[in-house]
């Protein structure tokens, strides 16, 4: 019998001579997987959740104000994160969704955040909702809030956090994402303080992740990076995660949003 554990771990069997060419060797792969991505399934699930009455107030999220007025989805994602006066802080999409779950549906933070990151069998509410809301910004220009003092503060905090080294391995975000042309193992590392690299990235979150067959969001990405940095865990929707997302989104200003997309 042939080895059945094919694919457990990294099975490399190819000569990748100029492994780091200017144009990614995976360009065709990325284009074809993007054309054949199952993201619509999640958008569909998110739409159902958006309209589903739940929580102590038995209410849907349909009147949730994502920054463009109650219930307005068009262009909302492209304009986040931004400052929300009713919450007194800057919020990204997931943080705002949580806010609406708590205020409109009357759910407790504890209950609503019990399962913020899903798995391949079942996406979390935030993941499905993010896919649904983000789709409604497809084709629009990314323009996170920058005019309110709190927005400036959040952006600056995100920038400081990006370079802040801490933890047992002395890592900052820039340890891996601070130089051009680097890779970790076989994976290209985008320089995330550089518009050239961060623009195409921010234009494509949330995304269906091929390696884990699940939809992933920016809150998940921040959380998982801190895990790999050997740090403690950031709270979902905390100022830290929002500020980092804000920093990168501002750096991507003007890019056309084209998600939800696909990632390796």
């Amino acid at each position, binding site marked *: 019998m042939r080895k059945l554990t094919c694919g457990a771990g990294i099975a490399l069997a190819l000569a990748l001579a100029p492994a780091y060419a200017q144009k990614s060797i995976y360009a065709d792969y990325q284009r074809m997987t993007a054309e054949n991505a199952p993201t619509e399934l999640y958008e569909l699930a998110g739409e159902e959740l958006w309209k589903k009455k739940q929580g102590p107030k038995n209410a849907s999220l349909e009147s949730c104000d994502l920054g463009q007025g109650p219930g307005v989805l068009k262009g909302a994602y492209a304009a986040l994160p931004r400052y929300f006066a009713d919450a007194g802080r800057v919020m990204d999409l997931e943080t705002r969704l949580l806010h609406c779950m708590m205020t409109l549906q009357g759910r407790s933070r504890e209950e609503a955040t019990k399962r913020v990151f899903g798995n391949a069998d079942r996406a979390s509410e935030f993941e499905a909702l993010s896919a649904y809301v983000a789709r409604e910004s497809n084709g629009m220009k990314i323009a996170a809030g920058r005019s309110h003092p709190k927005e400036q503060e959040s952006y600056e905090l995100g920038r400081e956090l990006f370079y802040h080294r801490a933890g047992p391995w002395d890592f900052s975000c820039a340890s891996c994402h601070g130089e051009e042309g680097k890779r970790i193992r076989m994976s290209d590392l985008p320089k995330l303080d550089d518009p050239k690299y961060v623009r195409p990235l921010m234009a494509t979150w949330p995304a269906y992740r091929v390696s884990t067959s699940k939809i992933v969001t920016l809150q998940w990405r921040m959380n998982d990076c801190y895990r790999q940095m050997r740090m403690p865990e*950031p709270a979902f929707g905390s100022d830290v995660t929002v500020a980092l997302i804000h920093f990168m989104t501002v750096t991507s200003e003007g890019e056309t949003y084209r998600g939800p997309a696909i990632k390796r």
Partner: protein
Amino acid sequence: MKRIPMLTAAALLAACASGPTDERPRVSDAEIDRVTAVLKRDFHARGQATMNRVDLDAVQRACNLYNDNPPAELAKRLEEAQLKAIPFPSGSLVGDWKRGERIAQSGRGSMWSDKPGVQEGGSCYNCHQLSPKVEAYGTIGPSLAGYGKIRGASPEMQKYTYGRIYNSKAYSLCTQMPRLGHAGTLNAQQIKDLVGLLLDPASPVNQ
């Protein structure tokens, strides 16, 4: 072995040319403390990743304060202190390269998702080329292919290599390389096995 490339002033300048938002501003001690306070407020312990990991030691503080480019005198003083704290074992430091290769391949260890205690993970291939046969290597650190063939395996080279893995900051204060022994990620035997991987003439690194 040269210093691992890091964010240099030149790299920052180059980055500035491509956009308005990617310049790292200089930070003060007070600003660093403010970031630490925010981390303490927004993070929570999970598994082995306890909250004291947010606290900065003198090395981290200096690197944050000076954008990884501290004044030579300060760097030298801190490097010396780091070097003095390395508990070098006596005798040969060249362990089993086969075990070393496994440690180099694995990225496990010290994460909240890992089992507590020392795991078999040095994450070496994440950043370095080692055995030329392994194609899945990272480029954050320099290639270490042929490391022992070039340098030999003298006691001095063994000690240097051991120390470099145990605490790289003792040799180059703001290198991006983790202090794998100092941080408790690898134990003495595991570091010896990695020294074996790098120095043993039979190791794939030196073929």
